[in-house]
């Protein structure tokens, strides 16, 4: 029953397809583990998962090269994982350990792994969009073969900064991709109740390409759409706005319990049946890229990676108190000021 999965030629190598599945599994298992740790009180603060949206995340990230930049939002564990980040320092960050990617100062909401090209995720929705545009600007001016991709939600798509950023990027033909992860809700608010027209169509008003990926549960479909936009950006033909339709399987944030059930049971059921990892597993088997046993093996490998990340986290110390007073400025007078 995978007839909705894109029929595609052999342009995506087998290894890459398997890597897609591996990275989707990494996100799923990493985040399921993290949510368990939230429930056990091992992870403090707020945590938003991309469970259900893995195809959209991985399809986009794997259309990028290592030197390309990404900027994310509050729901951004998947983005660095999708781009190949190590799990240990990410998990350690969620717990607030010294070995975390941000030395325990960012947490889930402000994760950034610069080693994979991340410009950081923003706890303020929409706020990182112009940052990605700036990375594209520097690539253009410095003549570097680099593009930038900005991830934001359907909620953020209604923030003014997006339109300033799109206009600037189009006017300057910057190598940037605006990727709207339309999971159909901004917290409890259904997108269609607060959104005039279709998001992807707004691109036309700025003289840039607008693309709709109707099936964001299909990793290949997402990859192909983003790949084309990336090629366009690299050629110097400017930005693209891509709207990817998807669904989050879990609550907006872990531990959030709303009295009002804002999502229809039937709708939920429909989307839960469109689990991107299960769908792609079927595709891989059907295309004889891997058999069930090999894919089980892959899942076991990833599960072990996640356990290793947790072990790394457990064995890591918490940061020394003085770390709270570092990294504000590049010079040293910061400590004197804070004291």
């Amino acid at each position, binding site marked *: 029953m995978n007839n909705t999965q894109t029929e595609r030629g052999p342009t995506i190598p087998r290894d890459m397809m398997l890597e897609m599945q591996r990275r989707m599994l990494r996100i799923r298992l990493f985040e399921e583990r993290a949510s368990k740790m939230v429930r056990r009180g091992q992870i403090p603060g707020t945590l938003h998962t991309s469970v259900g949206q893995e195809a959209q995340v991985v399809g986009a990230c794997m259309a990028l090269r290592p030197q390309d930049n990404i900027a994310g939002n509050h729901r951004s564990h998947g983005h660095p994982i999708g781009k190949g980040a190590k799990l240990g320092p990410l998990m350690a960050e969620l717990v607030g350990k010294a070995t975390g990617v941000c*030395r325990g100062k960012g947490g889930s909401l402000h994760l*950034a792994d610069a080693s994979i090209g991340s410009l*950081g995720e923003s706890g*303020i929705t929409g706020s990182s969009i*112009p940052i990605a545009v700036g990375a594209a*600007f520097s*690539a253009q001016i410095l003549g570097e073969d680099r593009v930038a991709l900005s991830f934001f939600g359907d909620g953020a798509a209604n923030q003014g900064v997006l339109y300033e950023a799109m206009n600037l990027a189009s006017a300057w033909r910057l190598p940037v991709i605006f990727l709207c992860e339309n999971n159909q809700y901004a917290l409890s608010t259904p997108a269609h109740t607060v959104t005039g027209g279709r998001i992807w169509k707004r691109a036309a008003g700025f003289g840039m390409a607008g693309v709709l990926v109707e099936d964001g549960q299909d990793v290949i479909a997402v990859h192909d759409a983003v790949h084309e936009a990336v090629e366009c950006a690299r050629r110097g033909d400017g930005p693209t706005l891509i709207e990817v339709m998807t669904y989050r399987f879990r609550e907006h944030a872990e531990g959030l319990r709303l009295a009002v059930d804002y999502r229809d049971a039937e709708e939920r059921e429909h989307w839960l049946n469109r689990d991107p990892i299960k769908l792609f597993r079927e595709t891989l088997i059907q295309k004889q890229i891997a058999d069930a046993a090999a894919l089980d093996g892959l899942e076991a490998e990833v599960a072990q990676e996640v356990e290793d990340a947790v072990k790394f986290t457990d064995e890591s110390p918490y940061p020394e108190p003085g770390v709270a007073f570092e990294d504000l400025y590049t010079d040293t007078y*910061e400590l004197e000021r804070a004291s």
Partner: protein
Amino acid sequence: MTVMTYIGAIGAAQREAMQADPRVVIIGEDVEANVYGTTGAGKARAEKGDFLQEFGRNRIRNTPISEEAIVGAAIGAAMTGLRPIVDLSYSSFLYMAMDQFVNQAAKNRYMFGGQNSIPVVFRSAMFYGLSTGAHHSDRPYPMFMNVPGLKIVAPASPSDAKGLLRTAVDSNDPVLIFETCLLWGLKEEVDEEEYRIPFGVARVRREGSDVTIVAIAGAVPLALTAAEALAADGISAEVIDPRTLVPLDKDTIVESVRRTGRLVVVDPAHRSCGVAAEISAIVAEEAFGSLKAPIVRVTSPDMQIPFSPSLEAQIYPTAEKIKAAVKSVCASRASEASSNISRS
């Protein structure tokens, strides 16, 4: 050495910085046509020294009126290899990009654990005192001082404007420079060679022994005028210009007050939670024992800026107000003397 105006010195520093480092770019509204006079030699495009001619559109570029996107893009560009100078023209327009200043520029390096640096300069001019009304007369540096992670510069002379801007461009942290439009025509001997003025080092503009006047930005020339007049009345006033508000050279201020025993702080910005309040608090904490009189602040009141010149003029500090404030703190010399007598 050569005589330069304040605005000329800013233009000279920008040219030097552009010539010294190809990663330095200037973006902003109307910068290509040199509308604000800091990106060319004169007002005509053809004139020698035009930045667009010299550096090309990859190094200097007009932006749309999109402050949030411009500021954000400059931050992103700074995180990925450029060293942008953003000309935001009027300081009042900074509010349009408040989220980018506060949540991105100031926080990114910190919250990402020092993984990146953000070498970007945001220049803007404070047009107060020119009948530009409430939407164009802001002096907003105090609110940005309340945001850890930004460096705040407020030059009050041509030589400082040039040297501080070069240091700002060298800085690997975001720097906000607040220029004073009323000082644009102010002249001073300036070194045409490259030089930098370190942040966090105040400039003692006049030495004195009876009272310390700390003056901010556009208040500095007023304080110097007042000090001159006070000298004729037998009062020796020391005038200190902190030059950078973050970092702030506390030591020079505190040391001066320990010697003079009196402090007047002059600031064209609003009174509450302002630079003057901050400096007063520092001195109260660190040099209370040396004070011979209560600290006096001469600031703009917590009032919006009216349009009519007859209404606006009364709002800001003047040399007269500074003189009166100094006289009031020096008058307590007598009461102090009498209390010493009565105690003995």
